[in-house]
């Protein structure tokens, strides 16, 4: 009957008058409000009543869902051991198709590549990383401070401000002064939003979009300033070929031998193509527990393009571009 009342309300365009009347009727049978299957809330012309009916419908849906859950839980308890295993929720990580370009450390080709690519000198300990950090033209306060903090995080790095110099002319000078890497932080509307990482003696150039940059003072519960010790590096989830080369790029920024006394660790964690950078200080409270405290800036990177040679926007040969 209550459902019938709702049905006749359709198309009548009635005002709030019949509405309260129906309300009085329906609470009389609160649990058993049944909407007839042909009834659709969207057919009521009156907005107030339509809204009211929709809320009512939603409540009912929720109740049914809850009842279903309870029933299932009871069944599960009743079965005890024989109960079917709990369903694992599907996540993107579970459902991902296996990527053929995943790096297999035993693969010959990969091993050959590793031995002969541009980072081989670094990994053979022939070169010591020396980083030059710079920005785009006329950096604003936030970018400047970010550059300073970044240079405290990465050992052996120098910040130079670009006063209208062309990158193409900076690069030969850097190579002449033995710099191994160049980082350019691009700024837009007073916040840093891009990062170009270029390995210098004609190494690959990676262009990233940078987001959620947090300076040290914006981090909650942060520790003291990062010391001069060489931090450890953690690279997570760089599994595919592309990821592997990017991971090696990041690794080559830091000197080879971390000073464990400093207890600092820089993490590059790749998740769904977003690379999260964090800088922590850790302390082992026991052999099963470790405490970490975040110091240093944090930011997120997303790779936009990987170029084969050094930075050259017009004639560069692109290995990979994000579509």
């Amino acid at each position: 009957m209550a459902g019938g009342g709702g049905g006749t309300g359709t198309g009548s365009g009635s005002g709030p008058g019949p509405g309260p009347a129906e309300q009085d009727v329906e609470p009389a049978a609160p649990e058993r409000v049944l909407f007839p299957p042909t009834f659709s809330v969207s057919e009521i012309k009156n907005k107030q009543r339509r809204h009211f009916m929709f809320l009512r419908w939603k409540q009912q849906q929720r109740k049914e869902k809850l009842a279903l859950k309870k029933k299932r839980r009871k069944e599960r308890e009743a079965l005890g051991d024989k109960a079917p295993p709990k369903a694992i929720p599907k996540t993107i990580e579970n459902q991902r198709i296996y990527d053929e370009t995943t790096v297999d450390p035993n693969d010959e080709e990969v091993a050959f590549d590793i031995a002969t690519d541009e980072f081989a000198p670094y990994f053979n300990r022939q070169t010591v990383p020396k980083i030059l950090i710079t920005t785009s033209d006329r950096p604003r306060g936030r970018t400047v401070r970010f550059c300073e903090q970044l240079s405290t995080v990465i050992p052996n790095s120098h910040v130079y401000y670009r006063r209208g110099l062309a990158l193409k002319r900076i690069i030969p000078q850097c190579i002449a002064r033995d710099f191994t890497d160049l980082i350019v932080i691009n700024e837009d509307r007073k916040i840093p939003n891009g990062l170009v990482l270029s390995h210098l003696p004609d190494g690959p150039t990676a262009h990233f979009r940078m987001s959620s940059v947090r300076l040290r003072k914006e981090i909650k519960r942060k520790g003291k300033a990062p010391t001069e010790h060489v931090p450890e590096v953690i690279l997570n989830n760089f599994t595919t070929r592309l990821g592997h080369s990017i991971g090696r790029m990041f690794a080559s920024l830091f000197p080879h031998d971390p000073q464990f006394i400093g207890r600092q660790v820089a993490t590059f964690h790749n998740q769904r193509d977003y690379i999260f950078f964090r800088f922590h200080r850790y302390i082992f409270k026991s052999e099963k527990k470790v405490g970490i405290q975040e110091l240093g800036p944090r930011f997120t990177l997303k790779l936009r393009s990987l170029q084969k040679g050094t930075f050259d926007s017009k004639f560069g040969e692109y290995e990979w571009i994000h579509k």
Partner: protein
Amino acid sequence: MHSDDIVWDTLGNKQFCSYKIRTKTQSFCRNEYNLTGLCNRSSCPLANSQYATIREEKGRCYLYMKTIERAPFPRRLWERVLLSKNYEKALEEIDENLIYWPRFIRHKCKQRFTKITQYLIRIRKLTLKRQRKIVPLSRKIERREKRREEKALIAAQLDNAIEKELLERLKQDTYGDIYNFPIHAFDKALQQQDAESESESDMEKEDDDEDKDKREFVEADDSDLSDFEDMDKLETSSEEEQEDEEETEKKATHCKSKGKTPLKGPTRRKRPYIEIEYEEETEPATKTKVS
């Protein structure tokens, strides 16, 4: 000429002029033939039948002139003269063309011409430098990327991942001698007696504790050894009975002073050795001699 006054009286001052823009302090004239850009009696191209301007097209400057004789012929109203590229020559040309014209118009024409050449020079200089490329952001894509980043951050569970990795590294002995945790130190003690003696010499202050430990040790297998950091064996024996945390906390504070290497997991199997410790009651005696 008298029509100029009428035009100014109506358009300029009192009624609507579509080229006029008023701001709080000033009014401007949007007419493309205006010489100064302001809305004045002497600058209005509509209210002056004898008028001249300088306009620039594709990098070349032209002098435009309007005289009252051509007022009824709108198509031929403005006469255009190309000025030379040379600045001084062009100024002379302006003077020559506007020879008997009012001083105001001549002066303003030359000023405008100067300004135009200056900005043309600047354009040419800037195009040689690097141009900043302006890339449009698609709002939909930006929103999508932001949302995905948030979800990726939640899925990443960074703190857990980092902690796990660090513990892995600890297990695999990458930290070498720095950290000293009970089980590992215990194994070290088992493997090298020398290391133990060295650590004992380090821990001279804890001799009394050692004695106490031994005493308790002999009396009953008590677990009140939490305060003592010295003997590995004794500590590991208390481990069995107690939780590690109190000891290891204190150990962590002294971790750098100790010279024992942490060892791997399988050392757990060496727990029975603790019982062997029970047998070696004579050792404490020897150790007291050493210390």
